[in-house]
């Protein structure tokens, strides 16, 4: 019997597991996929929002601010790729400037450091902007982050402190008993006194399993371009357009923590949470929107396109509550933007609600708020690189030439508290295959290293999800 079962190991489940790790509790996490952070956490804008967007007083407004404040400390402690960066909401006309002023007021109400900038000021802080920009809202409280590393890092801490992470464990049903719940999963039954529903796009379905059918998924897909680092160097801020009549923030242009440039997303009803297909018309519109912000973007340097699905619901705010139909379940649902920014605060709220629901929260004196260090070879000085190779020659073998990732880093990724079992899983841990050749050269090598280090045949190593097999057999 577990004290708590967290359903879903995206950034919300991870943050909840991280917060629960501080207490003397037996925690399990059930994740549908073969790795953590595989849903919305994997495919989003990777931005920690300053907090001027949400309506003042809403959960989104309050938790966004708390979330980014705490994240500044946590990313340092857990060594997560993160970089503070200015953000701009740009205006092309008077209607846009009206929106900018509205956001400015919201920003002030939410306690954000914001400024309204003139045309000259905006171009001075971001020379890449289109000359048609007449003014902007500016803030220095935003940041860019590696979202899947953020979630993975928090889950690693939870695992180190005893959490039982069950992968390939899609929850099929939840049975309600007097003193506990039983989740029937693809990876066995799990009994737990309390369940946290952090299932992202699937959260409304999990709620329905205990009779709560108020939440309707209205999932919105967004598509993005990723461009080469040559393009990433052109932009030094997160650039948003003004929200449209429906409040949609629209396409943004932003560097990533790895130095690439992303352009996207749009917003379109997703047929299914895993409908991640990109569509030519949408991509065309996104390209045009990006060029409108930053005319110097050269799309010949694009290296990838992707789509993500936001877990939007029929309710506009975050859903953070004890489930009205089952007092042993906590809903953390509707975690669309600013879900990533708010994650740590949402996790904290989840713990508070578990306490209110009757869970005894006794602090664990042996809590270890750390994870094994991550070596990023490329970021080391020549002296440090020299010393590292002398100690472990695997760091002298570059496997991914585009991102300068060594065999040492790949081997280390495969022996961390959460073991990636796929080529893309390794990519998410250490960037091998994330560069301009998209794994063309290194994926067979990574494949081989996974097989060797984990002792599984190469035929059994998937590209990503279970079933995404790469090899169909031996040659003649």
């Amino acid at each position: 019997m577990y004290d708590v079962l967290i359903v879903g190991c995206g950034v919300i489940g991870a943050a909840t597991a991280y917060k629960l790790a501080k207490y003397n509790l037996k925690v399990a996490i059930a994740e549908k996929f073969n790795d953590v952070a595989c849903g919305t956490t994997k495919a989003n804008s990777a931005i920690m929002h300053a907090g001027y967007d949400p309506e003042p007083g809403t959960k989104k407004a309050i938790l966004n601010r708390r979330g980014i404040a705490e994240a500044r400390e946590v990313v340092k402690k857990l060594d997560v790729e993160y970089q503070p960066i200015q953000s701009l909401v740009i205006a092309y006309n008077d209607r846009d400037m009206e929106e900018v002023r509205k956001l400015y007021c919201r920003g002030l109400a939410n306690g954000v450091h914001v400024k309204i900038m003139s045309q000259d000021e905006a171009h001075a802080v971001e020379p890449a902007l289109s000359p048609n920009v007449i003014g902007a809202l500016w803030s220095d409280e935003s940041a860019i982050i590696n979202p899947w590393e953020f979630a993975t890092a928090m889950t690693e801490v939870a695992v180190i402190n005893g959490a039982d992470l069950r992968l390939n464990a899609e929850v099929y049903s939840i049975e309600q008993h007097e003193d506990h719940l039983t989740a029937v999963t693809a990876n066995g039954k799990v009994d737990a006194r309390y369940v946290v529903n952090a299932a992202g796009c699937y959260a409304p379905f999990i709620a329905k399993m205990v009779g709560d059918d108020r939440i309707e998924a209205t999932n919105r897909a967004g598509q993005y371009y990723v461009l080469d680092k040559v393009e990433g160097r052109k932009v030094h801020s997160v650039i948003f357009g003004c929200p449209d009549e429906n409040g949609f923030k629209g396409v943004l242009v932003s560097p990533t923590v790895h130095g690439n440039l992303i352009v996207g997303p749009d917003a379109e009803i997703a047929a299914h949470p895993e409908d991640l297909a990109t569509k030519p018309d949408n991509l065309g519109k996104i390209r045009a929107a990006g060029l409108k912000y930053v005319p110097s973007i050269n799309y010949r340097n694009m290296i990838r396109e992707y789509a993500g699905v936001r877990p939007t619901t029929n309710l506009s705010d975050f859903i953070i509550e004890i489930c009205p139909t089952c007092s042993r379940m906590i809903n953390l649902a509707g975690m669309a933007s600013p879900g990533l920014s708010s994650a740590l605060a949402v996790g904290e709220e989840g713990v508070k609600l578990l306490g209110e629901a009757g869970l005894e929260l006794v602090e664990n004196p042996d809590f270890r708020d750390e994870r094994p260090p991550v070596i990023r070879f490329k970021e080391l000085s020549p002296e440090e690189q020299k010393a590292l190779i002398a100690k472990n020659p695997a760091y002298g073998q570059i496997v991914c030439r585009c991102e300068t990732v060594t065999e040492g880093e790949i081997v280390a990724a495969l022996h961390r508290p959460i073991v990636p079992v796929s080529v893309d899983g390794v990519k998410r841990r250490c960037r091998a295959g994330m560069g301009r050749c998209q794994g063309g050269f290194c994926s067979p090598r990574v494949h081989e290293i996974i097989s060797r280090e984990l002792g599984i045949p190469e035929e059994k190593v998937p590209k990503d999800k279970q079933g995404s097999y790469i090899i169909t057999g031996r040659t003649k």
Partner: protein
Amino acid sequence: MADKYYDVVIVGGGPAGLAAAVAACEKGAEKVLVIERDKVVGGILNQCIHNGFGLHYFKEELTGPEYAGRFAKMVAETRAEVVTGTMVLDVTAAGMKRYVSCISSENGYCVYEAGAVVLCMGCRERTRGAISIPGDRPAGVLTAGTAQRYVNMEGYMVGKRVVILGSGDIGLIMARRMTLEGAKVLACIELSPWCNGLNRNVVQCLNDYGIPLYLSHTITGIYGSDRVEKVVVSKMDGGKPVPGMEFEIECDTVLLSVGLIPENELTRNAGIQINPRTNGAVVFENMMTMTDGVFACGNVLHVHDLVDFVTAESMKAGAAAAEYAKGKRVGGNIVDVVSGDGVNYTVPSKIRPENVEKGVDIFFRTNHPRKKSVITVKSGDNQIAAFKRDYMAPGEMEKITIPKVLLAKCSGSMTVSVDDAVEEVF
């Protein structure tokens, strides 16, 4: 600053690097170093187990590994040193000195000072992301070269029902290879109205196996939740799909052969001028870049069809690098080579007549297939030379040689064009 000095440091031990090493030693360079990132030299030739290599250089038909093996042996017989498993992280050419920094398991982090540097990093394949094919992102979408590595080096098959996008040579070769290994290759799909590979490969790899080639078509969607399940193929007109003309092919694998990109990240970081038409460095007649003492040759300079031409170009570069290291400097006037009508690019793009002995070779590609046509070289309004061709195609690199006496007639620049007045194939 440097751990060691070499007269010539060669970055890359593929066919270009090996030929450059042989030539540098022949020209008298005392200390020559070849740096190779893989465990063995030979580069991509090692996975090209088909034949057709060496017809020009060795006058016989070799496989890729055989061609590489011959050059590896030739290098081993020179005084050149070869280090493998070593990745160059940085080339700097600031002021009069050149440094190459690299890492390996064996030697750790090293910096070499170089009298001259020859860049031979080769090229990489254009990916799905670079051409933005819409749809899902399942397993089973690979570049043809990656598939070739799995099949020929690792001994694994990567699919059973295969569609090939692009008619580049690697794609055509892989169509045959996958067929021989028991896969069903359902189609080869090419966006252009013509094939981009060598004609001999169309005949030997597609026609001989009855694999249909769809010209003026492309894949407009890849679908499948975990593994590829189908592709949507559309007929194209003027860069746009023709409505109602799309069809689906059920398959589990898509191999991409949609172009090669010279790998010039080191070149760019070193601040060396790049030719936007080739994505390779701008070079003089002896393959020196616009940065003194740094040379480039092979597929890192422009993408070749035949390794024999890579060898010839790289021998020129290696010899010139050796001479540079020994102190030879070239002066005099510079003639710019301009790509005129019908010419996609030229290599070299600058010629110093003072450094030309008898004549200078100019390599280029034409922009579409042509039957009988005339290549003209003009300087201003004066025609310097003309060359007749019975057939030209973008997939086959052209070479013309301008005699030194004619170079003297060029003032400032020369323009190479293909005469459009003749009948075209399409």
